[in-house]
């Protein structure tokens, strides 16, 4: 059975061109970039080229890119690095209640060390109000961290506006752009961004490599101490092949981003419309327009997410849910709850995220399959009363 992969927001396959670009760096050109001799020089040159590709993707200078072991590490480095480099006075951090766990976990860690963190609320679309950001700033505020687009519901935040507020207040501004880099245009200067996290595996690069953009002049401590790699900002032998792959992926993304967003946006809208038409008592989660071109997130009342996923998987369709049952914890998505969804609707959420290889047929297949699955699950749901029957 042909699998239909609709979880590009979780991870993307590594693009064949990216794999090709990486291969020589496992074999012939395997050098340690810190070495003086030929192999080392080849490695350094390759890393430099990748660095400038990643820099170009977000409008940064080459020197402002620090390669990391992924998006999570980049988020950790941004927040902890700024915190550890700060004067004692600056002990206040502003973030939102819908950030990725990498940001929330770092904030919690810093709270345990005595930092104060303000978690801003969002509206029902998952939007942060720039005015809330402004009001939260105090004399002690060190950094504001607001994600560019949310990984679950796809809502894109007014980053440039928040960047202006941060700049006016003289506060560092970090944004987690793991879901947007390579998908939505980013210009760190125009947007007033001081720190920005990226992850290669969300843009058809390899897993286990990411980058933190650190604006020149930003005072930041390393998260990982040791050798002088990455200009003393991130120690450890460079993930040479991974970095080369990231560079190639960034280069590809820069070329295809605009067109891809148009194509995916159309498929996304067909999928949303189809779902809402075919499945009664379903609702779209996230913002209707300020939204990632590849993100569909719906809540389907009376049914639970994991059982939808299992049925979809049996039909070869890969998706994701905000239900507690797949989270390892017993709580459903903090993002959906922050947006005001009931627990029941949060447990019934389904994320379908599209990508480079998604086709119109995939969309059709999901629509048909899901409709059947929902009927089947609703038939066995004690919460669901079929239309026409009186409520309990």
């Amino acid at each position, binding site marked *: 059975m042909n699998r239909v992969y609709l979880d590009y927001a979780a991870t993307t396959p590594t693009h064949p061109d990216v794999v090709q670009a990486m291969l020589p760096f496992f074999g012939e050109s395997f050098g340690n970039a810190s070495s003086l001799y030929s192999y080392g020089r080849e490695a350094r040159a390759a890393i430099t080229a990748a660095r400038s590709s990643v820099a170009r993707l977000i409008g940064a200078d080459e020197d402002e890119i620090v390669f990391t072991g992924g998006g999570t590490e980049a988020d950790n480095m941004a927040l902890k690095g700024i915190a550890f480099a700060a004067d004692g006075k600056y002990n206040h951090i502003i973030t939102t209640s819908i950030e990725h766990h990498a940001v929330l976990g770092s904030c919690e860690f810093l709270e345990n060390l005595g930092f104060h963190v303000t978690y801003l609320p969002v509206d029902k679309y998952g939007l942060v109000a720039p005015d809330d950001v402004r009001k939260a700033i105090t004399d002690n505020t060190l950094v504001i961290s607001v994600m560019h687009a949310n990984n679950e519901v796809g809502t894109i935040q007014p980053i440039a506006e928040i960047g202006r507020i941060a700049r006016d207040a003289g506060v560092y501004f970090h944004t987690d752009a793991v879901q947007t880099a390579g998908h939505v245009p980013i210009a760190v200067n125009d947007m007033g961004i001081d720190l920005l996290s990226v992850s290669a595996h969300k843009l058809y690069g390899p897993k286990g490599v990411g980058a933190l953009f650190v604006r020149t002049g930003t005072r930041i401590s390393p998260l990982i101490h040791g050798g002088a790699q990455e200009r003393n900002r991130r120690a450890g032998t460079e993930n040479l092949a991974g970095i080369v792959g990231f560079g190639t992926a960034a280069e590809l993304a820069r070329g295809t981003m605009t067109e891809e967003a148009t194509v995916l946006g159309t498929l996304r809208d067909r999928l949303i419309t189809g779902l809402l038409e075919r499945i009664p008592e379903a609702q779209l989660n996230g913002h209707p327009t300020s939204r990632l071109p590849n993100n569909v997130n719906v809540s389907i009342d009376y049914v639970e997410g994991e*059982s939808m996923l*299992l049925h979809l998987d049996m039909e070869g369709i890969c998706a994701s849910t905000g*239900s507690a049952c*797949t989270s*390892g914890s*017993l709580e459903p998505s903090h993002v959906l709850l922050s947006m005001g969804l*009931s627990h029941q609707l949060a*447990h019934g959420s389904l994320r379908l995220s599209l990508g480079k290889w998604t086709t119109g047929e995939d969309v059709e297949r999901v629509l048909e399959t899901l409709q059947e699955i929902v009927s089947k699950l609703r038939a*066995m749901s*004690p919460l669901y009363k079929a239309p026409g029957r009186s409520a309990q």
Partner: protein
Amino acid sequence: MSDEQPVYSEKVMEHFRNPRNVGEMESPDGIGHVGNPVCGDIMELYIRVVDHVITDARFKTFGCGAAIATSSMVTELVKGKTIEEALELSNRAVAEALGGLPPIKMHCSVLAEEALKSAIEDYLQKHPKPDSA
């Protein structure tokens, strides 16, 4: 998300795919209702009791794969049992009959046990044993 995603046994998946005894029951002798939307699992369990023996059981469940599979299994296991025997059915027995459950899913088997107990209680309340006590 976690790297400790539940890995379900074949038996769990089989009961999830083809759950036994799904649906409501016309005028059941006992109804159990447990769980709530906050935790994400809700089970309704119906029993038919004839001469102190559970002759039929059905369920409706809102919940994950394990919740559906344990519901299905508990309805199977309980059929033919006396009330006393049924009250002794533990969540472990349900889980074992399914070839085991991932640790983070054990609470679903607890829910299934509770649903059964709740249905039996409902039955006992509605049908107080005249000769007992």
